[in-house]
């Protein structure tokens, strides 16, 4: 049947009348009904599962609404979702616990900061005192040394003169090594150089115009990839040293004891103190304090993120998802960044931006610059699945990447209900048909 949303109700825009599309309604009993473009009606292709769109008799469309395959896939969906929903709940529970733990840690850290901070400032005072004494002694000695230096004045100047020449050479070398050259020269250089190229190089040069790939990418790769990229993962080494909150509690008590003992030291005289020991303690506690501070700021940062309505993405924070495809390893670190790693190189596909479409995808933007194109970006679409895994990395448009990630987090109750209902309605229809057959 045709739903009439046609010429009679057509909108008038200015003096132009716009065509409003007619749509065809498929009842699809036993399946979900659908609306079809009129271009699909009697076109020789079966679109509605009940076959009602091909009524002119040119083709015969079987009714596939109760198709075993469709039912099977519906059943599979229900199964997956049923398990997925449970996993999702577990995930949310775990997330809740993790949040509680992180919050507890944060408040603990803040207390530590107070205590350790105090301790550090006291140690600082002690160190200052030691310094002062030391300096006084030094001053006496250096006066005596200065007398001797005056007699040797001409030496350093000679040295400076000799150094001018070698410095120039090394500058040039540096430039050559880095492959730098004034960029406005490049155009001329290409033309000049193309005559001196080997036939293979010339061929590649022309290829490069089209592809934007640097010539010799396949042939002559020299790896100068910044290896330091590898190491920028965990900065807060503090994390490992503090295993759990119970042991930390006793650790804190110990510090407080230590602090007390230092406090007692102030009553004794400077001369009696072990200077080396004090400096060591001072250095240790200063670095502990900075660890504490960095951990506090990283936790504070973490809490700023949007983890979803039920914080269901909380556990994604410290995870790294990998997927291997066509010579590349893709790494996606939610809330952080995403990279593409080849044999000799690593490319930043994007830094964390946000969730989109009510937490149905993750967006990473502002990645490495793209030759003749946009900065790289990645959109990770999220789907319901029983395991959290990254699949299907793709580059649909140049330097705009897309990936698919399955995770129980996306297995929503509502969706499960929807599938269940569909399956039920099919079952009912089948029962009815069965009854008809019996009669």
């Amino acid at each position, binding site marked *: 049947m045709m739903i009439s949303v046609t010429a009679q109700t057509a909108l008038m825009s200015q003096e132009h009348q716009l065509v409003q599309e007619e749509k065809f309604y498929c009842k699809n009993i036993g399946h979900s009904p659908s609306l079809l473009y009129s271009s699909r009606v009697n076109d020789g292709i079966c679109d509605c599962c009940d076959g009602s769109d091909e009524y002119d008799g*040119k083709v015969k469309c079987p009714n596939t609404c109760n198709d075993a395959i469709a039912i099977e896939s519906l059943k599979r969906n229900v199964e997956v979702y049923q398990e997925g929903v449970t996993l999702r709940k577990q995930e949310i529970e775990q997330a809740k616990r993790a949040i509680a733990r992180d919050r507890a840690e944060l408040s603990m850290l803040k207390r530590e900061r107070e205590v350790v901070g105090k301790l550090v400032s006291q140690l600082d005072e002690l160190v200052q005192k030691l310094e002062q004494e030391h300096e006084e002694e030094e001053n006496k000695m250096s006066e005596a040394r200065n007398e001797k230096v005056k007699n040797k004045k001409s030496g350093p100047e000679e040295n400076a003169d000799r150094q001018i020449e070698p410095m120039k050479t090394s500058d040039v070398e540096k430039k050559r090594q880095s*492959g730098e050259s004034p960029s406005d020269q490049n155009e001329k250089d290409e*033309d000049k150089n193309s005559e001196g190229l080997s036939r293979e190089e010339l061929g590649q040069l022309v290829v490069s115009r*089209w592809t*934007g790939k640097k010539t010799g990418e396949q042939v002559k790769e*020299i790896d*100068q990839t910044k290896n330091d990229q590898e190491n920028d993962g965990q900065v807060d080494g503090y994390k490992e040293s503090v295993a759990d909150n119970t042991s930390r509690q006793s650790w804190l008590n110990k510090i407080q004891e230590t602090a007390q003992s230092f406090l007692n030291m102030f009553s004794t005289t400077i001369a009696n103190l072990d200077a080396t020991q004090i400096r060591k303690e001072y250095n240790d506690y200063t670095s502990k304090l900075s660890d504490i501070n960095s951990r506090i700021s990283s936790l504070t940062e973490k809490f700023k993120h949007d983890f979803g309505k039920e914080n269901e993405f909380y556990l994604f924070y410290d995870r790294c998802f990998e997927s291997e495809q066509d010579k590349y390893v893709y790494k996606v670190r939610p809330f952080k960044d995403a990279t593409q790693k080849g044999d000799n190189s*690593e490319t930043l596909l994007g830094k964390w931006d946000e969730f989109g479409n009510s937490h149905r995808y993750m967006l990473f933007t502002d990645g490495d610059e*793209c030759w003749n194109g946009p900065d790289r970006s990645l959109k990770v679409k999220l789907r319901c699945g029983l395991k959290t895994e990254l699949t*299907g990395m793709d580059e649909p448009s140049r330097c705009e990447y897309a990936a698919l990630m399955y995770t129980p987090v996306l297995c929503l109750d509502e969706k499960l209900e929807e599938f269940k209902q569909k399956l039920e309605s099919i079952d009912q229809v089948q029962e009815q048909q069965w009854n008809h057959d019996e009669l």
Partner: protein
Amino acid sequence: MKMKRIAFLFLLFLASQTVLSWKKDEFRTCDQTPFCKRARFRKPGSCTQIATDVSISDGDLTAKLVPKAHHDHDQDPIKPLTLSVSVYQDGILRLKIDEDPSLDPPKKRFQVPDVIVPEFESKKLWLQSVTTEKHDGDIAGLSSVVYLSDGYETVLRHDPFEVYVREKAGKRRVVSLNSNGLFDFEQLRVKKEDEDWEERFRGHTDTRPYGPQSISFDVSFYESDFVYGIPEHASSFALKPSRGPGVEDSEPYRLFNLDVFEYLHDSPFGVYGSIPFMVSHGKSGKSSGFFWLNAAEMQIDVLAKDWDAEDGILMPIDQSRIDTFWMTEAGIVDTFFFVGPEPKDVVKQYISVTGLPAMPQLFSTAYHQCRWNYRDEEDVENVDSKFDEHDIPYDVLWLDIEHTDGKRYFTWDKLLFPHPEEMQRKLAAKGRHMVTIVDPHIKRDDSFHLHKDASERGYYVKDASGKDFDGWCWSGSSSYPDVLNPEVRSWWAEKFSYTNYIGSTPSLYIWNDMNEPSVFNGPEVTMPRDILHLGGVEHRELHNAYGYYFHMATADGLVKRGDGKDRPFVLSRAFFAGSQRYGAVWTGDNSADWGHLRVSVPMILSLGLTGMSFSGADIGGFFGNPEPELLVRWYQLGAYYPFFRGHAHHDTKRREPWVFGERNTVLMRDAIRIRYTLLPYFYTLFREANVSGVPVVRPLWMEFPSDEAAFSNDAAFMVGNSLLVQGIYETRAKHASVYLPGKESWYDLRTGNAYKGGKTHKLEVSEESIPAFQRAGTIVPRKDRFRRSSTQMMHDPFTLVIALNSSQEAEGELYLDDGKSFDFKQGAYIHRRFVFSSGHLTSSNAASSPLGNSRFYSDCIIERIILLGYTPGAKTALIEPGNKKAEIELGPLRFGGHVGAAVTIRKPGVRVAEDWKIRIL
């Protein structure tokens, strides 16, 4: 693309930097091309050749060309040349000049084989007699005159030699050769010891073992105001003078097939194809033409008025004329003069030499979606389903080079396209087709069967030392099949069989790119001129035809694949005279800017005029990212190109019609649907081209030969004889000035409003459409139901749009067949003529007497007849036979996204296949 953070060798780093503009320095100018430079130095009247021994022999007029006097005794004696004039039906003169084979020249000069169709020879008229006359006002001059056709004769003046065509009555000249005495023919000779024949250009050396062998001469077109043709150039349709007073940066039009990176849109520079055929037209309303069958590099000057003011020879002729100067590096003089006199006659005469355009499959006249590259099967499926989701019709999805396994053509990337057959079957289930790319460079990889086979058989072109030529292209180190050799062509054709081309299915067709040929490390990005082909033919002699032979071999392969039952579809980038027989061409790698949108029209007009009816430009521009407005305007214009394909470079953003928001999606969908609505009309026009050569898209003056205002108009064009279309070529246009030729009115396709002819109208324009009109006195068949692809439209009913002229009359035609097989050649088609006159519309058979027993029947009916320019009043129409009645009322004039209103005969229900008459009561 997966770019890596990598540092490179110094040199390579530099080499990769500049990639954004046309590399002018990489291509030779005339001054850097010795034969061109030499020829351009010649002064008018410097030719001293005279015709002797004039006689009739084997039905031809023959003569010897000898120099009048030997001035310089140190020079080699100049041997006589042979000249022959042959005459063919319908006003065609063929003039050949070559070295005399009996005088033992060092090498046989190359004559381009397999371009002239075999039928042409059967049209030869055997000359019986020659008359001799004294040249008017010439003291010494004797001329030999022979018959050419009714009303025309050929004249060979003896001293100095000149050949021309003139009207019998009134003796007015039409076309002539060597009237300015610029003829020069460098004969092959033995190298002297002190001579250096090598030529160098940008590090490449051309050994030129046979030395100078160029030919040049002048051709004059009489009573003409403009000359056109000689594609392919990105320049105006009416050819601007390239030399003479008022011409700056004088550079001839170059015909040399080249893969030009980011070509400019106003340049006489040669691009991908070459057709050395020129057409003239003037105020008299008459046209004439000249074709030189020669595949070597050619340079052609269009000479400005008074170019010869200083040292010209006084021509004793009072007729106005345009002089042109033709130069080529090698080959022979094998030229054709076409007398016209109508523009369409000239085209038909040229076509009778080089062959009729192929009849395309219906699907290939619909919309094509291409991109470098649709990445993998999932991408293909996605794009395909998006068209359906947005209810945008399309017929063909294309795969560029990345679909192959390492640029080995005929293979598939196993990771990206693991199931090519299933992928094609899925498209085919919706009536859609796929096209894959197959280029001529074959990867030199011993594990690649194609390479192994070709090298073992010795099928590659050879370098000067006799080894297989090894050039660089997409596939890296590559070799090129010698497609001049018919045996190689037939070997190549076999590669398209379903067993050889694994993963191909009957719904797969082919795209030939890079067939200029493109050689990335060759001189001017092509093959060195001293490369050797079959029989020791040098590449310089056939360069411009390489792509033609390759296209031919591929198209033949598709015919063989389908047991001769399925029409081939092969798109080629390079072309030569005759390519129209093998398929479509496009204007290559254009750019996403308004200038390229604009120049696409003169480029397509030039191609159509020279036989290449099936052509188009990449919608959106290949390089760069088009603004949505430009893209929309391009779809609106491209919907009227004979070949309608969206394409994009690798580095550009996705630009499928749905990616720019709802509004732009609607606009692009409307534009594409216009094409689908007009498919019956287009298909009828393709058939017209297939039987006459008259192109689908035509210049205004082809339909209005006497309308001077139309002569240099290349902003607008005619689609067939009925529609006039003009693009919008600038951003945010509010108005457009459109010249409507002729005396009759024109009807806006969308509103049905009438506009007077013979006038420039300043029209308001909106984003919804570009100016498009139906000419009064015509009938256009349409199909107004939208479908997924043309395949599903097969049984849909027709609409006829009748645009009445001032005498309330109109006529039009409709051609239909099965859309894919060759059965139409046996008469399996329907060809109707519709005539509206004295208030009734008649449908009659327009098919020429059937050739065979095959029949095509269609049960399609006509569901609507729209009358433009008809005064409303009548309420009913009577249909005969049957005496049924149909209502007449004001109905919608659906077109694109617009519904105007027009007098409509509703549901007449008559069958297109039958005779009938409808009377308005």
